[in-house]
C-alpha cells in the first residue's frame, strides 16, 4: 500500500469515528450524516496531504510534526465554522494528524529511486 493511500484510509477511518461521536450529543443527532461526511472528508484531506508529504520526506519526527500541524489546522478551521468547542475539536483533530503522520512514515511502500 502506498503512503498516500495509507494516509487516506487511516484519515477516513479516524475522521468517520470522529464524526460518529456526534451521536452521543442528542442535539446533533439530526445532522449526524452531514457531520460524518464532513469529518470523513476532513480526515481524507489530512490523509492525502500527510501521505504525499511522507512520500517526499522520509523522517519520522518531521512527518509527525507535519501531521500535527495539518491536523491542527484543519481542526481549527472546523472549529471556526462551528463557532465554538475549540478545545474539543482541535485536540482530537491534532491527534488524528499525529497518528496519520506516524503511520505514513512508518508504513507503506517507498517509491524506488531509479539509478540513471
Amino acid at each position, binding site marked *: 500500500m502506498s503512503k498516500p493511500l495509507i494516509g487516506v484510509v487511516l484519515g477516513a477511518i479516524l475522521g468517520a469515528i470522529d464524526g460518529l*461521536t456526534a451521536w452521543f*450529543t442528542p*442535539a446533533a443527532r439530526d445532522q449526524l450524516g452531514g457531520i460524518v461526511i464532513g469529518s470523513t472528508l476532513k480526515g481524507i484531506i489530512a490523509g492525502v496531504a500527510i501521505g504525499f508529504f511522507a512520500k517526499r520526506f522520509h523522517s519520522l519526527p518531521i512527518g509527525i510534526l507535519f501531521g500535527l500541524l495539518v491536523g491542527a489546522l484543519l481542526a481549527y478551521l472546523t472549529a471556526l465554522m462551528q463557532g465554538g468547542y475549540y478545545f474539543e475539536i482541535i*485536540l482530537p483533530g491534532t*491527534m488524528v494528524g499525529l497518528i496519520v503522520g*506516524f503511520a505514513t512514515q512508518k508504513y507503506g511502500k517507498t517509491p524506488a529511486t531509479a539509478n540513471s
Partner: protein
Amino acid sequence: MKWLSDDKLNYLRTIVGNPDFSSTKYAFIKELARGGMGTVYLAEDRELNRLVAIKVLNTPEITEDLRNRMVREAQIIARLEHPGIVPVHDVGVLADGRVFYAMKFVRGSRLDEYATQNASVRDRLRKFQAVCDAVAFAHAHGVIHRDLKPQNIMIGSFGEVLVLDWGVAKILRNPVSSEADTLLLPVAETKNEKARLVVDTSHGTIIGTRDYMSPEQARGETNQLDERADVYSLGAVLYFLLTNRPPSEARPRSINPKVSKPAEAICLKAMSREIGSRYFGASELSTDIGRLLDAEPVSAYRESAIEKVSRWVSKNRFLVLLVLAYLLMRIFFVFTSRP
C-alpha cells in the same frame, strides 16, 4: 653432569613439539588449541606484519596424493569469500612435509561463551541468522560444513559472526566418492575438539559432534548427507541459543518458557529427524528467522487468529497506543462536553 630442571624439560618438550615455520614467512608465537586432527598456532606473518592462525595437521606422514588433495580443497574453501566465513590466507608446506593453512586470527568469543554473557534472545537470533547466511553461502557453492556447533562459531570484537572449522566439510558437487570429498584440514581454533567424533562404520565415516550431528550423519550415511544435515546442526545450535543447553529430547519451551512458540517451531523443524521435514537449506531457515525477528508469520508455525492479532498488536504497539489514546480522548470529550 648437571641435571635439567623439570621446568626446563617441559619447555624443551614443548618447543620440540612445535612446528618448524623457518621455511615460511611466519613466526611461531604460541599454540592456541589442539584437536584430534590438527593443532592451531598463533603466528606472525612477517611480510604483512599481522597475526594469523595456522592450522597444521597432526598426521605425521603425508602422502603426495593427500597433500595435493588438501591443497585443492584449501583452494575451494578459500573461494568461500563471505564475511561470515573465516578466510584462508595461505596454504603451504612445512620443512617436515606437513601441509598448513594460514587463516585470519579471530579475536572475540565463541558463540557458547557469547550466549552465557546474558545476550538477549533477539541478539542471539540476529547472530544465528548471520550464521545461517554464511552457511547458506557455502551451500550455494556446493559445500556443507558437517560440524556446526556453538564452539565453531566466533563472535568478533565488533559483533561480526564467523563460522570456523571447515575441516570436515564436504564438497557436494564433486563427482568423486564422498570420502574423497572430505576436507581433511580443519581451519579452526576450537578448544573442545574432544567432543568431535570420527568413527569408521560399515556405511561410512561418522564425522561431527554428537550433540549437534544429524541422525543420518550419526548413522554414518555419508553418501546421504546434503545441506539438510547442516540444517539439523543449525537447529541444534538454535536450540542451544534458546535454552543455553546442548540439544536434548526436551522441547526448548519446557527448558526456557520465555521461548516463543514460533521460535520453538523453527528449531524443531530444523531438527526434525525426518530429512524431508526439515528446511531445505540454511537460506530457508534464515528467512524464517528473519520473519521471526520482524514479527511476521513463520513457515514453521501455523498461528491461531488470536495469535495473529496479538503479533500484529505487538509489532505495531505504538500505533495501537496512539489510536487507543485517541479513542479514549473522544470518549472523554463525549461525556464531558455535553450541554
